[in-house]
C-alpha cells in the first residue's frame, strides 16, 4: 500500500516524504535519548555548580589548591559527573563540564584573596566527606553550602581581644616582661581595631600594612614613653604578630610542594609583601620619631 503510494507520487514528493519520515524517526530517537538523559544532564549542571560553590568557599577562606581540586572532584564523582575538568588558581576557578542538551557547561569564577576563615574550610571538608558517604542529595548539598557561606564570624569584640591576647603572648614569648605584655595587649587591641575599621575601605594591601606597622610602633613608643613597659623591641615584635600573614605563608609553601607553582608563588609573594610592608611601617615610624624628638630609641 505504502509502496504503491510512493510509486504514484512524483520523485520530489517521494523523496520529501521519505526524508520527513526519516526525520520523524530521528526525532523520536532523539527525544527518547533526551527523555532518558535530560534529568541527569540537568543535574550535571547542578552538580558542577555545587562543586564550584564548594571550591569557591574553600579557596576564599584559605585552603590549599590541591584540597580545592580534590573536594570538587569528590563531589562530581559522587553524583556521577565524569567528564568535567577543573583548573584552579589562587584567585580563580575554571570549570568545563560534559555536553548537555543546553550545550557545554563552562564557568569561570574570579575569587579575590580574602581573609582566612578556617571554620568554613573545616565545614566544607566535613561536608564533602558526608557527601561521599551518601548522606546528602544534590539539593541538600547546595543548601548546606549556602549555610556554610552564611556562617557568622567572630564578633568585633572577640576578634579585638584575641588580637590583644596574641600580642601579649608573643611579646612574653620573645623575651618581654609582664608589663611589656600588658602594653602589647593594649597595642594589639588598638591594632585590630585599626585593621577591622580599615578593611571597609578599598585600600591596597601595601598601604594598609605599612600604616599598620607604623600605627603599632607609634602606640608602643607612646606607652614606652609613658613608662608602661621597659623593652620597646619586644613590645613591638609581639604586637605586630597579628599582621603576620600565616595562612598565605603556609599555604604558599604547601602549594609549591604540591607542584602548584603559580598559586604557590602568588601566595608566597603575598606573604612576603606583607612581611616587608610591616617592617617598612615599623622603620618609618622609627625614622619619624628620630627626626621629631632626636636620639635613637633603646
Amino acid at each position, binding site marked *: 500500500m505504502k509502496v504503491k503510494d510512493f510509486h504514484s507520487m512524483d520523485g520530489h514528493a517521494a523523496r520529501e516524504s521519505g526524508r520527513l519520515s526519516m526525520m520523524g524517526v530521528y526525532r523520536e530517537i532523539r527525544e527518547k535519548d533526551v527523555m532518558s538523559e535530560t534529568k541527569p544532564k540537568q543535574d550535571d549542571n547542578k552538580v558542577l555548580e555545587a562543586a564550584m560553590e564548594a571550591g569557591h568557599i574553600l579557596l576564599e577562606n584559605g585552603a590549599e589548591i590541591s584540597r580545592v581540586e580534590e573536594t570538587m572532584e569528590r563531589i562530581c564523582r559522587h553524583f556521577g559527573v565524569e567528564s568535567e575538568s577543573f583548573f584552579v588558581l589562587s584567585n580563580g576557578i575554571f570549570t568545563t563540564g560534559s555536553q548537555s542538551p543546553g550545550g557545554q557547561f563552562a564557568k569561570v569564577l574570579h575569587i579575590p584573596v580574602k581573609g*582566612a576563615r578556617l571554620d568554613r574550610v573545616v565545614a566544607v571538608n*566535613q561536608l564533602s566527606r558526608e557527601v561521599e558517604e551518601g548522606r546528602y542529595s544534590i539539593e541538600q548539598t547546595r543548601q548546606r553550602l549556602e549555610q556554610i557561606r552564611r556562617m557568622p564570624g567572630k564578633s568585633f569584640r572577640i576578634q579585638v581581644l*584575641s588580637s590583644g591576647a*596574641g600580642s601579649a*603572648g608573643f611579646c612574653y614569648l620573645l623575651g618581654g616582661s609582664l608589663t611589656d605584655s600588658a602594653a602589647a595587649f593594649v597595642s594589639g587591641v588598638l591594632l585590630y581595631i585599626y585593621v577591622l575599621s580599615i578593611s571597609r575601605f578599598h585600600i591596597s594591601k601595601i598601604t594598609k600594612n605599612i600604616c599598620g606597622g607604623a600605627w603599632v610602633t607609634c602606640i608602643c613608643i607612646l606607652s614606652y614613653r609613658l613608662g608602661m613597659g621597659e623593652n620597646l623591641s619586644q613590645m613591638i*615584635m609581639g604586637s605586630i604578630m597579628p599582621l603576620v600573614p600565616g595562612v598565605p605563608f603556609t599555604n604558599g609553601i604547601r602549594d609549591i610542594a604540591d607542584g602548584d607553582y603559580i598559586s604557590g608563588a602568588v601566595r608566597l609573594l603575598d606573604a612576603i609583601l606583607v*612581611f616587608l610592608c610591616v617592617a617598612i611601617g615599623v622603620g618609618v615610624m622609627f625614622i619619624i620619631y628620630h627626626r621629631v624628638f632626636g636620639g635613637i630609641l633603646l
Partner: protein
Amino acid sequence: MMGQTAAAFLGTVAFSVLYGVPRQYYVYCGLVGGAGWLFYSVLTGCTPCTVTEATFFATFLVVLLSRFLAVWERCPATVFLTTGIFPLVPGAGIYWTAYYLVTDRPAEAADNGFAAIKAAFAIVLGIVLVFEVPDRFFRTKRKHR
C-alpha cells in the same frame, strides 16, 4: 621556659580565634604551638643546635603533630599547622632587620635579615618534608565516629 611555653600556648590559641578555627580545636592548636616552641627552646638552650636547625626540627614536630591531629580529628591539617607554626615564624628577625636598617647599621641588618631568611627556609623544608610522608602513616589510630 615553662612561662614562655604557656605564652606560646596562649598566643597560638588567640590566633586560632582570630583565624576562625572551630571552637573544639582551640586547645589542640595551642598544644601544637606550645609543643613547637618548647622543642625549639630545648634545642637552642640545651643542645649545640643553631637557631636555623632548631627551627627546622621544631617545624618538623609541629607539622607531624598537625597531620596526626588532622587524621585523628578528621579535619584539614591547615587548621593546626597555620596557627601552630606562629611561634616559630621569624618575626623577631624581621623586626631587627628593619630596626638596624633605619638606625643605619647595615652589617647587623644583613646578619639579622639573613638569619630570618634561613629560618624561613628551615620552616619551608620542614613543612615540605613532612607532607611527603604518606597518609597511611598517620592513620594507625583513627578516631571512630
